[in-house]
């Protein structure tokens, strides 16, 4: 049963994608429950796979029984099982949240929207599952095309943002494909495990094509990942997309790209090669560090919540890049843990933005005041939790990824990077406390803040959206606390087994 499970996930999403399209004919209301059901099935499968891998180790699925490198294989190791679980669960909560906000923002486009969302999930899951570089490219294109669609149905200007993303995304994919071509020419293989065995035997003096392949693939992936300075598509796309798209793409889209980067650098090319042979990680490290500071500073300058979160995403992706660039176990732990943490934090924050847009009609920080907290106490409590986690205060999750990253930078004696991590925490504090301050303290304009105004229980709860929108936000917030407290468990049982060879 379990050996066939990997292929189930893409099949479920593909089936859902097609069936949801059919509901347009008559039972439009079925789109939401079907999408949700598909995700629940996929999440359950992913959890089962994660359990199996943790318990019994990695396994493969050969398509059509063809043995690689002839055939295509799905490879389930601790890393892919972990990322698989994270993206499906995050997507599940976001989809659960999406019903009302989609009705409001998309109207009659809801049915195709869910259909495309399933396509996105199909692509992302495929990327994580596959053990073949070309197959990965196909899934990358599927997920990219789906995300262009999901972004383009947003508010005014979103079509332009999606077009920009499309251009850059295609450039990225082309880079990746070109690199792959070079790789194939020189090795004759596209299978990751096969390549990992071939590449160490090549001499780089004689085969500069391998280096070019590595550089091109890395650049391509970094565009998808939005590593500075290849992030240009991200702010507009995240800001102008419909709320659900932002909450779906921001937490998991770039994480899957990070997964590809980890896979390519550490599992195919090998730790020694990328950190010593070719200075890929050095360059990645500096770009990530600049990206962290750049994203954080620009986030401070934003007055729109979603745009602020978008810039914050650029900074947070930098953390993952920085962890990868350390090329040591602690950096790896930090990067992978941050994939999990940031997925949860950003999903939580974007859903809060969605709640605000649904209930208040905007998410403009300058208009926030005390009444928001009074009307939406739970949403705001979740926001505060996620914000504190983003700032990196213990015992919330965000602290621990930074902790491992800090340990990693010290181990490599990279003092500049340590300073970057610490300074960016402070910058995070600036832009999040700016919001928190408004929400908890700024009196609504024109209304004097009388004694005990905040204590009037009659006002509580009147402005919260429906429970299906509040519960996911609270689940994310609570999960941040749990992940933080039990991070050692996650690190030892899930992350340490996925350590790449030679690290």
């Amino acid at each position, binding site marked *: 049963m379990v050996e066939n499970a990997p292929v189930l996930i893409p099949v479920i999403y593909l089936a859902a994608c097609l069936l949801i399209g059919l509901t347009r004919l008559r039972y439009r209301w079925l789109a939401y429950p079907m999408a949700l059901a598909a995700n629940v099935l996929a999440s359950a499968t992913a959890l089962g796979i994660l359990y199996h891998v943790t318990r019994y180790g990695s396994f493969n699925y050969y398509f059509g029984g063809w043995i690689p490198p002839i055939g295509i294989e799905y490879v389930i190791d601790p890393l892919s099982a972990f990322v698989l679980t994270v993206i499906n669960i995050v997507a599940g909560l976001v989809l659960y949240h999406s019903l009302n906000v989609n009705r409001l923002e998309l109207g009659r486009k809801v049915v195709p929207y869910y259909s495309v969302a399933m396509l996105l999930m199909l692509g992302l899951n495929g990327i994580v599952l596959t053990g073949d570089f070309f197959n990965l490219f196909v899934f990358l294109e599927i997920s990219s095309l789906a995300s262009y669609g999901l972004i383009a149905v947003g508010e005014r200007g979103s079509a332009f943002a999606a077009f920009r993303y499309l251009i850059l995304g295609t450039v990225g994919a082309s880079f990746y494909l070109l690199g792959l071509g070079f790789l194939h020419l020189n090795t004759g293989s596209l299978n990751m495990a096969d390549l990992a065995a071939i590449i160490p035997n090549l001499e780089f003096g004689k085969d500069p094509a391998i280096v070019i392949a590595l550089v091109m693939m890395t650049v391509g992936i970094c565009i998808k990942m939005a590593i500075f300075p290849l992030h240009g598509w991200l702010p507009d796309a995240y800001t102008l997309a419909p709320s659900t798209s932002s909450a779906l793409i921001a937490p998991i889209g770039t994480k899957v790209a990070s997964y590809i980067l980890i896979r390519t650098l550490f599992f195919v090319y090998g730790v020694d090669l990328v950190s010593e042979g070719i200075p890929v990680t050095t360059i990645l490290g500096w770009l990530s560090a600049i990206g962290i500071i750049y994203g954080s500073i620009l986030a401070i300058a934003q007055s729109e919540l979603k745009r602020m979160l978008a810039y914050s995403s650029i900074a947070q992706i930098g953390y993952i890049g920085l962890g990868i660039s350390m090329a040591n176990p602690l950096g790896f732990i930090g990067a992978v843990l941050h994939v999990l943490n940031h997925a949860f934090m950003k999903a939580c924050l974007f859903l809060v933005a969605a709640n605000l847009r649904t209930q208040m009609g905007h998410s403009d920080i300058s208009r926030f005041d005390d009444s928001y907290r009074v009307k939406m106490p739970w949403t705001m409590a979740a926001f505060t939790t996620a914000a504190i986690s983003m700032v990196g205060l213990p015992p919330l999750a965000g602290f621990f990824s930074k902790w491992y990253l800090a340990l990693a930078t010290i181990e490599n004696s990279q003092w500049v990077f340590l300073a970057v991590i610490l300074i960016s925490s402070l910058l995070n504090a600036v832009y999040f*406390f700016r919001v928190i*301050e408004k929400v908890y303290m700024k009196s609504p304009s024109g209304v004097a803040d009388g004694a005990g105004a905040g204590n009037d229980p009659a006002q509580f709860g009147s402005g919260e959206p429906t429970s299906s929108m509040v519960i996911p936000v609270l689940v994310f917030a609570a999960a941040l606390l749990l992940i933080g*407290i039990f991070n*050692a468990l996650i690190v030892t049982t899930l992350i340490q087994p996925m350590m790449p060879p030679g690290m």
Partner: protein
Amino acid sequence: MNDLTYVSHIPLFVVLVSMAAVPLILASSRKPNLRETWTLLAAGTKFLLVFSLLPGALEGRSAVLHLLEISPGVDLALKADPFGVFFALISSSLWIFTSFYSIGYVRGNNEHKQTRYFASFAMCLSATMGIAFSANLLTFIVFYEMLTISTYPLVIHKETPESISGGRQYLLYTLTAGLFLIAAAAWTYQLTGTMDFKAGGLFAGTSFPGSTMTVLFFLFLAGVGVKAAIMPLHSWLPTAMVAPTPVSALLHAVAVVKSGVFGVIRVVGFVFGPEVMAAYGLNIILAIFAGTTILVASLIAFRQDNLKRRLAYSTIGHLSYIVLGAALLSPSGFTGGMLHIATHATMKITLFFCAGAIYVNLHRENISQLNGIGKIMPWTMGAFAIGSLGLAGVPPVNGFVSKWFLALGALEADHLVVLGIYVLSGLLNAGYFFPIVHRAFFREGEHLEGHGEASTLMVVPLVITAMLSVLIGVRPDLFFHFYELASLIAQSLTGGLL
């Protein structure tokens, strides 16, 4: 001290008691009396639990509890060693008085958002206990940051532009400090492979390049020095005086700033250890900072007309008494420093209570407006006089006792300059406190007709803390065995140096 330990859940309960009270306080926001009952209940329970740890601590035993692994190889662990119990006793006992006083203050002043106020206060105390009982640096950091965050709502309580900017400054300083501490802890962990506090220092017996140790020490100093208000990291403290007075009293005279000096002693005695400190000359660095702070803060205090700001600068000076005592690395220096944590706490909380009582009663904040108020508020100003005497180091108030040991410590370590600083600062203290007492009792005031003492809920606590100051001054071992505990810890720290 033999490193005797026993497993006990009491430290955990101590931390959790007030945390558990938070949801109860929030849930009963509509019933103020029930809400305050929770606070008082938590305060009382917490104190009794801490007190039950005292006998063990006096025998030099530590209650230990490993909760869970929080980072591979590092546990979230509590360890109620004598020093932790010492600090927890002071904070938890004074919380009881502050709770009564707070009730009087917020009701007398008709403050807004009282529920948030009491909830944050309870949270702060949990964090403080966590700091006291942290067994390693990572646990310490967890609670240290928790304290930062839970104090923030109290600093900005009034929500005026002034308090919001004060809150920003507070966060800027304390969060930055937290980051330095994280960096320092991470580096320590990389160097030594452990983060457990150990009497005598976890660095004891190691040798690293002097530059590494110096930079690491500065990182630690920046980390804990902000809350300890060592100059030039002090300026958040006077600004944070915009908070309601009970907050200033407990947090900015006892819990938060004392967490800072507690951290300094932890770093000096339990991370670096006296030997390592002396070997790398780190104690000299610390002493220079602390000595300068004492003198400069005392001089600045002269110029403050706002009573709370003058108290704030006095606090900055007295915190550095403790830091300087630790920097001496001598047994009496440690004893005196630790005793001063306790004695300064009782005295300064008295003075802040007095300032709050004056504010609620007369809405006066400036010293120049205090003429003649001793006649209408004799109890309050009497307590104020006792506190002032104590801070100037006049016997029989307890400030004398701690100062005596600090002076002895300076002699033991053969640092006459330090002795000079203590003496001079005592004079300066007298210089900026006695005029207030003089004004209150011997000058004619205006517009005082029809005013009496503040409410009983406020006057009784401040009279008790003043009396406590005197009693501990006469018998340092009364009730809490402060002296016995302090000398026990000092011995364990300097064992190698005696």
